[in-house]
């Protein structure tokens, strides 16, 4: 039988002011009804572009489809006119996007957005009035697992959690009973536990509706469970494609291999260098925020009564899902967030209640690495300026020595010296994070608090940065609080682990010990939810 969607030799080029970029170069694949194709690749591999081009969602210019065909049910998506395309969109082919936070219009109720495909249906015949559309929508909301959906129908997106929003997105995609569902990294922005649920949901729905699914992801672990076929892309070129087991168990392609290897697995390989002495002692720390954003002030209890110690030389992992308050805890320790109660002691000195001026010498000794390497670098400062600033400010270097020291740092974090005068935007995410790390270690600190330093990076890059961090910790004899939502990463890097939930530290222990027998149910669930790059076990887990 003919495949539902058959893409042949797709070529998409971007004509930017910086010249031509071959985003997708001669890629072919096909999907049948009821089948799931996973397109895997790192950022810039062209996996998303491939799918956007199918629905003509690319900004033109700069994008231009240079060639190829995409036969959907006998019609070429690439050549059909706008009106025809509107018939496909949301009707035969639906799409789910990566970030549910931004993919829903914050100004409209979810209900309104849900029924739009029905009430504004491209062909008048199939349009429905609001009332019937609403019933349909509510029914779907139930189906995707949103409780008391009648009431939720009139709520706004911000009233839903990330996972819930993604469910809404899915409902929205399915409302016109599409035959092809394109999921663009639908779980990347979600916590592990939620991710598992969503994957589950998608798989069920596909079974029940017998739709074709294209599942885009950068994480082989995620797709292992649900994909029938896998297409691996890199720099716009198809590296390898075939059915899942083949790709995972007998791949011939080095790139695919590298992807698989990059997935952090197993315990930390390095020795625990923790010393007896406590570098940081936190007792009964409490951080509350006054939220002025609204006309009405409401108090956010980000951290409740946290007590912990960080031993000199150890890497302490801090895991928790988004909103658990782990970042706030980190910032509170550095006195970047105003603490409400409790004390933070650094190397025997109490930091809480110190005046900003007094803190300056201490700040030099404790640094932070932020999650988003894009936002954490001043876009108007070159690498040199960024790295030189702390050196000069803290008098570590002077005018003459600064250049050399900066180059030192760049060597340390593995950046080519030639790039010294470049601006952040000229670097890839990984390189940026290296710059950020460089800035953090510039002041020769003793403590570094790393807030999700790798979660914004591709797997392969992630692996490199993790190794870099370990290496630096070794060389500079650093103490580190490593905050992450990704348990595999935490396990890979940290000696000891704290688990945080709703602003409270619920469990802690040596990493392997905790992995072996977690006490709290919450922790157990977390550990269960970790996706593995092993189709068989994953399938088992999902179907269970």
């Amino acid at each position, binding site marked *: 039988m003919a495949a539902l969607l058959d893409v042949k030799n797709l070529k998409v080029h971007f004509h930017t002011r910086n010249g031509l970029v071959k985003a997708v170069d001669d890629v072919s694949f096909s999907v049948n009804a009821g089948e799931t194709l996973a397109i895997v690749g790192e950022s810039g591999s062209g996996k998303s572009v491939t799918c956007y081009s199918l*629905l003509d*969602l690319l900004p033109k210019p700069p994008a231009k489809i240079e060639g190829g065909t995409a036969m959907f049910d006998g019609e070429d998506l690439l050549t059909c006119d706008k009106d025809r395309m*509107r*018939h*496909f*969109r*949301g*009707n035969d082919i*639906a*799409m789910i*996007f990566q*970030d549910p936070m*931004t*993919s*829903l*219009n*914050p*100004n*409209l109720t979810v209900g309104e957005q849900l029924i*739009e*495909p029905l009430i*504004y*249906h*491209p062909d008048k015949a199939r349009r429905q009035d609001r009332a019937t559309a609403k019933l349909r929508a509510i029914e779907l909301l139930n189906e995707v697992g949103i409780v008391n959906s009648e009431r939720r129908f009139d709520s*706004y997106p*911000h*009233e839903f959690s990330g996972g819930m929003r993604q469910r809404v*997105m899915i409902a*929205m995609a399915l409302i016109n009973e599409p035959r092809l569902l394109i999921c663009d990294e639908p779980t990347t922005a979600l916590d592990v536990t939620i991710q598992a649920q969503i994957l589950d949901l998608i798989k069920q729905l596909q079974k029940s509706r017998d739709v074709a699914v294209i599942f885009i992801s950068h994480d082989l672990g995620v797709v292992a469970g649900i994909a029938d076929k896998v297409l691996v892309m890199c720099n716009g070129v198809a590296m390898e494609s075939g059915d899942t087991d083949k790709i995972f168990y007998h791949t011939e392609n080095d790139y695919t291999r590298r992807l698989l290897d990059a997935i952090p697995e197993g315990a930390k390989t390095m020795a625990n260098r923790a010393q007896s002495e406590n570098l940081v002692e936190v007792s009964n720390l409490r951080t509350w925020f006054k939220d002025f*954003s*609204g*006309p*009405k002030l*409401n108090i956010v209890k980000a951290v409740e009564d946290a007590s912990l110690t960080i031993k000199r030389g150890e890497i302490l992992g801090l895991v928790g899902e988004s909103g658990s308050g782990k970042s706030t805890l980190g910032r509170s320790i550095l006195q970047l967030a105003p603490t409400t109660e409790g004390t933070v002691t650094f190397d025997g000195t109490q930091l809480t209640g110190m005046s900003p001026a007094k803190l300056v010498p201490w700040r030099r000794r404790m640094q932070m690495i932020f999650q988003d390497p894009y936002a954490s670098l001043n876009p108007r400062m070159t690498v040199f300026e960024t790295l030189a600033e702390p050196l000069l400010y803290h008098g570590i270097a002077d005018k003459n020595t600064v250049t050399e020291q900066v180059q030192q740092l760049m060597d340390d974090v593995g950046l080519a010296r030639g790039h010294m005068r470049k601006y952040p935007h000229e670097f890839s995410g990984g390189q940026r994070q290296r710059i950020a790390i460089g800035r953090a270690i510039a002041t020769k600190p003793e403590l570094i608090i790393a807030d999700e330093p790798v979660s914004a990076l591709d797997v392969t890059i992630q692996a490199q940065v993790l190794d870099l961090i370990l290496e630096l910790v070794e060389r500079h004899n650093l103490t580190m609080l490593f905050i992450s939502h990704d348990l595999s990463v935490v396990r890979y890097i940290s000696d000891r682990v704290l688990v945080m939930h709703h602003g409270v530290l619920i469990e802690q222990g040596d990493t392997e010990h905790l992995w072996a027998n977690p006490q709290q149910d919450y922790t157990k669930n977390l550990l269960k939810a970790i996706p593995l790059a092993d189709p068989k076990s994953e399938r088992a887990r999902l179907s269970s």
Partner: protein
Amino acid sequence: MLRFALGRLLQAIPVLLVVITMTFMLVHSAPGGPFSADKAVPEEVLEALEAQYNLDQPLWQQYISYLGDVLQGDMGPSFKYPGRSVNELILSGLGTTAELGMYAMMVAIFIGVIAGVTASMRPNTAQDYVPMTAAMIGICMPSFLLGPLLVLIFGIHLEWLPVSGWNQIPGDKILPAITLGTGYAAYIARLSRGGMLEVLSQDYIRTARAKGLSEFLIISKHALRGGLIPVVAFLGPAFAGLLGGSFVVETIYQIPGLGRFYVQAAFNRDYTMILGTTVFFATLIILFNLLSDMLAVWLNPKLRQQVRGE
């Protein structure tokens, strides 16, 4: 919401007090009294007059008594127009100016938003540059130039519209509204363009597209809401400024509005009138800033619910 508004209004009180005090000192230290004229005014007459308006009292006494009156909502008698109270004069002009301001705003928003949205739909194409360049000119086109131009074209030569007055609808409202509105239209165009560009790059617009909605729906239903928030923020100050700045237009078109009083009062050294109008406009500025902030809150569902939740 109430608490929010009340808080802001409380802040306004000291502001107004300072405004009154500073203005009071300004006007009383300005050269030339309210009664100086090119024909010499005999001493005894001058004394008689100053006695009539307690100008013979020491300054601080005048200040205290003035404050007292203002607190009771009485802005005192006008010096320039014997027998007319400042309240009376302000009231007589307020309606007109407010009306003028409203029409001007309507023009500004209508033209501005359309131009801005059009421009934002195809950035960096002629469809963008043309309205934006026009906007640039509009911003810098002084109304003392635009006004006469319009009058000559539409009033004198084409004879489509009256050249002055404030009696018929819409006849003699149109030219003033355009003259006063253009500058603001231009600003709004720039703002709405910026806002729309911002919003159109959002993911949820892409979602809407993927849903198969028509471009029109996407713009009107999904984009405008968020895209016009900067405009909303601008409206408050703009409207206040527009009322204050209506002087030129009111003079060109012989409109009996507040702007003329505001300026004439300064020229006439009509102390009470200057104070009155100043206080009045200060209050307007504060009120409208508050209003547009509240509107902005209202447009944001998240904040709105917090308000409801209260």
